[in-house]
C-alpha cells in the first residue's frame, strides 16, 4: 500500500488511544468491523421502516464503533445520520446512508490490506512531519 498517497481511513493515533497497546489493535479492529457491519445492517432496516429512534440508536453505535477503530470519517458520517434520526428526519437519513455505506466500504478495503497497520502508522508520521514543517 502506498501510504504517501492513500486517504486517511484509519487514524492511527485515535486507534492507539482507544486500544492502548498495539497487540490489541487487530483484535479490536476485527471486533469493531463485525459491530459496524451489524450496526449498518440495522441502520438500513430502521431507515426502511422509518423508525427514527432506531436510526439514531444504530447511527450512534456506528459512530462509536468508528471512533473505537480510528475510522474517523465513518464516525463523522454516522454522526450526521444520528442527528437526522434525532430530528426524526428520515428523508435526510436515507440520503446520508449511501455516504456511510461508501465510507464503510473504504474502511473494509483499507483493512483488508496485509500492511494496513504499517500504512496507518506511516500516514500518522507523515502528518506529524507536515505539521512540524508548517510551524
Amino acid at each position, binding site marked *: 500500500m502506498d501510504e504517501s498517497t492513500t486517504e486517511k481511513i484509519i487514524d492511527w493515533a*485515535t486507534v492507539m*488511544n*482507544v*486500544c*492502548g497497546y498495539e497487540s*490489541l489493535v487487530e*483484535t*479490536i479492529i476485527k*471486533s*469493531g468491523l*463485525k*459491530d459496524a457491519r451489524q450496526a449498518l445492517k440495522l441502520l438500513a432496516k430502521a431507515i426502511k421502516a422509518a423508525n427514527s429512534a432506531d436510526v*439514531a*440508536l444504530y447511527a*450512534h*453505535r456506528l*459512530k*462509536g*464503533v468508528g*471512533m*473505537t*477503530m480510528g475510522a474517523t470519517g465513518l464516525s463523522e458520517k454516522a454522526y450526521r445520520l444520528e442527528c437526522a434520526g434525532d430530528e426524526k428526519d428520515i428523508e435526510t437519513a436515507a440520503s446520508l446512508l449511501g455516504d456511510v455505506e461508501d465510507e464503510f466500504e473504504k474502511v473494509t478495503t483499507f483493512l483488508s490490506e496485509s500492511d494496513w497497520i504499517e500504512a496507518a502508522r506511516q500516514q500518522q508520521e507523515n502528518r506529524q512531519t507536515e505539521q512540524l514543517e508548517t510551524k
Partner: protein
Amino acid sequence: MSRRISVLVIDDEKAIRKVLKNELTLCGFEVYLARNGRIGIKRANKLAKKGKIEVILLDWMMPGMDGLKFLSKLKHNNMTENIPVFMLTAKSKIADIDRAYDIGADDYITKPFKVIQIGNIIRRKLQKLAEKKSKQMVVMNIN
C-alpha cells in the same frame, strides 16, 4: 499495590468491552461485563447480593433497556441504589450530562477516552466520591 476494585462494564459495543476488560484487569480491577441494560440489571443484582460490586461503567445508547432506564431501575432498588455509576458515553451535550446526573449518575466520562488512563480515572473519581460522602456525613452529624 492498589486494592482490587470490582467493576461492572455495561456497553453494547463488543470492542469497548474487550478493551476495558483487558485494561482494567491489567490495572488490578475485577471486571464483570454486560452487553445491555437488561443483562446489566440482572448482573448488578447478583453481584450486589454477594457484595461484589463497587462501581458501574455505563453506556447510554443501547438497544432494549438503555443506560438511563438501567440507571433509574438501579437507583430505585434498595440493594443497588448506593452503587456508584459512571456514565461512559459518546453523548457529550451539556443537556445530556445534566439529564444523566438528574437520574442518579455519579460521574461522567465521555468517549473517546484514552484507555491507558481509565484505571486511574476510575480510582480518582471513586476517591472523590468517597470524600464527598464523608464530608456530607460530617455535616449531617454537626446538624
